[in-house]
């Protein structure tokens, strides 16, 4: 087919000109793909951060505000001074029966209760000789999560990976067994089989766990039933039948808003937080990158894309200007204008498609290769009870859809450029071409 022969020859022999146009288009399309891939990477990073806090699979959390301590009761302050105690964090208490109620809601796939607690350990009397006379003992604190053993797939423990020992089983409900975070275990020289004292009760470490993103994990995980039994709160000697967080999985991502609505209706006083709400509260370089990607990146992409299209159009028109004699001759030979326009547009489209793929893929791969480390800081009001700084690597994966986007954008830009070039060629008359040849 002569069309293809002509196309191939033009692209091969006018390589430099084609490259200039292609680079212009490729930069525009490549930037859009990079921003798209980076935004996707940031979204994945955010999901990783949220998973480290709430566990993979948790879509909604339910908490409630802490009750005002009754006059004369100890509240948080009272048990904080007790040796080897377990106390509730900033969140208020919910009835464990709410878990069952929520699990029966229409758009809920599963629900689990949990406790985010703080263990306080004071040095024993025996070590007092080492302290200066009259000095108060310095308490050490560690975070404890009460894990709902019936729903290990929900909550912060869901994303923990056992590196040694074993995880919980349903038969551990009433046992004094614990899974310890790997970093905490290293710091406290704990191994599988070691003992750890929580609220004056000895627990056996049966597993060491490592969280995928590290920072959001508790130091110690114990069965929820044991956490409830050992925790003191205000004038309650135990919190059996109470929890402070409910982790909920929706039947699908699109059902999350409905789940939010249903729980809010069921528990009007509760604070219902979706993963989207939490994402908006995450700060740090991850949040900055997300903001940059969605705001600056988007507008920068549009601006560069428009500039790239404009430059490509001008270059294509200039190229047609240099080929006036050629196109005029073809018209004199009886070529129709639409055939010449098709030839110009095909040249542009091939240039755009090749460079769209090459530069789009290349730019995003560069971000992927560099993989800058971003951090996310989550405010203390969330489930962990502590401010968590989580480090994640930004991976701008080039998906098939991103490559398709690059190709579509580059071809669109090339066709626009080709249209301008074709429009100029179509306006040529064979006689005009001959006049310019004089």
């Amino acid at each position, binding site marked *: 087919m002569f069309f293809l022969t002509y196309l191939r*020859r033009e692209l*091969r022999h006018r390589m430099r000109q084609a490259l200039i146009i292609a680079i212009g288009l490729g930069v525009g399309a490549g930037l859009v793909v990079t921003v798209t891939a980076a935004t996707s990477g940031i979204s994945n990073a955010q999901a990783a951060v949220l998973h480290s806090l709430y566990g993979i699979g948790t879509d909604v959390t339910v908490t409630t505000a802490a009750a005002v301590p009754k006059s004369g009761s100890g509240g948080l302050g009272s048990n904080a001074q007790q040796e080897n105690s377990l106390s509730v964090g900033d969140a208020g208490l919910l009835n464990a029966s709410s878990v069952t109620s929520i699990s029966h809601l229409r758009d809920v796939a599963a629900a689990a209760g949990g406790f985010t607690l703080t263990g306080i350990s004071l040095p024993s009397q025996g070590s007092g000789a080492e302290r200066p006379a009259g000095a108060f003992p310095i308490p050490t604190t560690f975070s404890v999560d009460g894990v709902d053993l019936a729903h290990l797939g929900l909550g912060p423990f869901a994303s923990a990976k056992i590196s040694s020992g074993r995880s919980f089983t349903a038969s551990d409900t009433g046992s004094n067994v614990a899974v310890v975070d790997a970093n905490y275990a290293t710091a406290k020289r704990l191994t599988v089989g070691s003992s750890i004292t929580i609220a004056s009760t000895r627990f056996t470490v049966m597993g060491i766990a490592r969280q995928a993103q590290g920072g959001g994990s508790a130091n110690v995980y114990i069965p929820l039933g044991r956490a409830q039994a050992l925790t003191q709160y205000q004038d309650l000697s135990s919190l059996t039948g109470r929890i402070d967080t409910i982790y909920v999985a929706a039947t699908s991502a699109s059902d999350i808003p409905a789940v939010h609505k249903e729980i809010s209706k069921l528990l009007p006083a509760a604070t219902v937080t979706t993963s989207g709400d939490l994402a908006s509260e995450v700060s740090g370089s991850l949040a900055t990158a997300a903001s940059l990607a969605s705001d600056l990146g988007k507008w920068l992409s549009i601006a560069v894309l428009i500039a790239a299209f404009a430059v490509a159009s001008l270059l294509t028109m200039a190229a047609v200007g240099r080929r006036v*004699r050629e196109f005029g001759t073809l018209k004199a*030979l009886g*070529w129709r204008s639409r055939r010449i326009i098709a030839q110009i547009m095909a040249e542009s489209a091939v240039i755009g498609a090749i460079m769209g793929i090459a530069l789009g893929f290349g730019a995003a791969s560069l971000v992927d290769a560099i993989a800058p480390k971003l951090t996310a800081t989550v405010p203390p009001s969330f489930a962990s009870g502590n401010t968590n700084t989580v480090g994640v690597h930004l991976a701008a994966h080039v998906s098939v859809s991103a490559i398709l986007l690059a190709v579509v954008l580059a071809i669109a830009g090339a066709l626009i450029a080709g249209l301008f070039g074709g429009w100029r060629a179509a306006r040529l008359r064979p006689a005009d071409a001959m006049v310019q*040849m004089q």
Partner: protein
Amino acid sequence: MYTLSDVTKNYRKGDYTVVALGGLDLSIEDGEWLAIQGRTGSGKTTLLQMLGAMDRPSAGAVRFSGRDLAGLPEAELTEVRAASIGFVFQTFNLIPTLSAIENVETALVPLRIPAAKRRARAAQALADVGLSDRAQHLPSELSGGQQQRVGIARALVKEPKVLLADEPTGNLDVDTRDEIMSLLEKLWREHGLTLVLVTHDTSIAERAQRVGVMKDGRLFTGAEPDDAS
């Protein structure tokens, strides 16, 4: 073949109107070789454009094989150029990225001739001008004379009724000029073409059956070639 009646062509240049052709009358017979001479700006190229269906007159009629080109829509003018008229240009006007044989093929593309047949006809046309061994060469790899031979092959490959040549030897040295003119004359005789050739060169014009001299937008035929100077 051609009958031009009171053909006028005006161009607007700013506030001025340039009269390129002013009431030109001309008849050209089938198989005739007409040479046109004249000073620069006398309207030679404009006349060639009218004959070649490349432009329309501002007034008057350009009848070609019984059809008035002035009244034909653009699509039909394109068909006339594609099927019936061959052009030879002073600057050869070959597509620089296409080989010699592909350049010849460009003249057959609008006629929708199948690729194999198109290639065979182009190869024969190149053979007719003695360039079979240069078929795969790019224009930049050919001499001026060889490029003009390719241009002539491109003009004749579609077997047109008319061959319009605008200063075909204007960019060639004397030896090559004579070589090209001998080739054109031979092909004119063999193909029974109507040949209209614009030239400044009196020695070339002398070879024609008839010489016309353009002056102030009008053609004076039957004149002696020397009148052009």
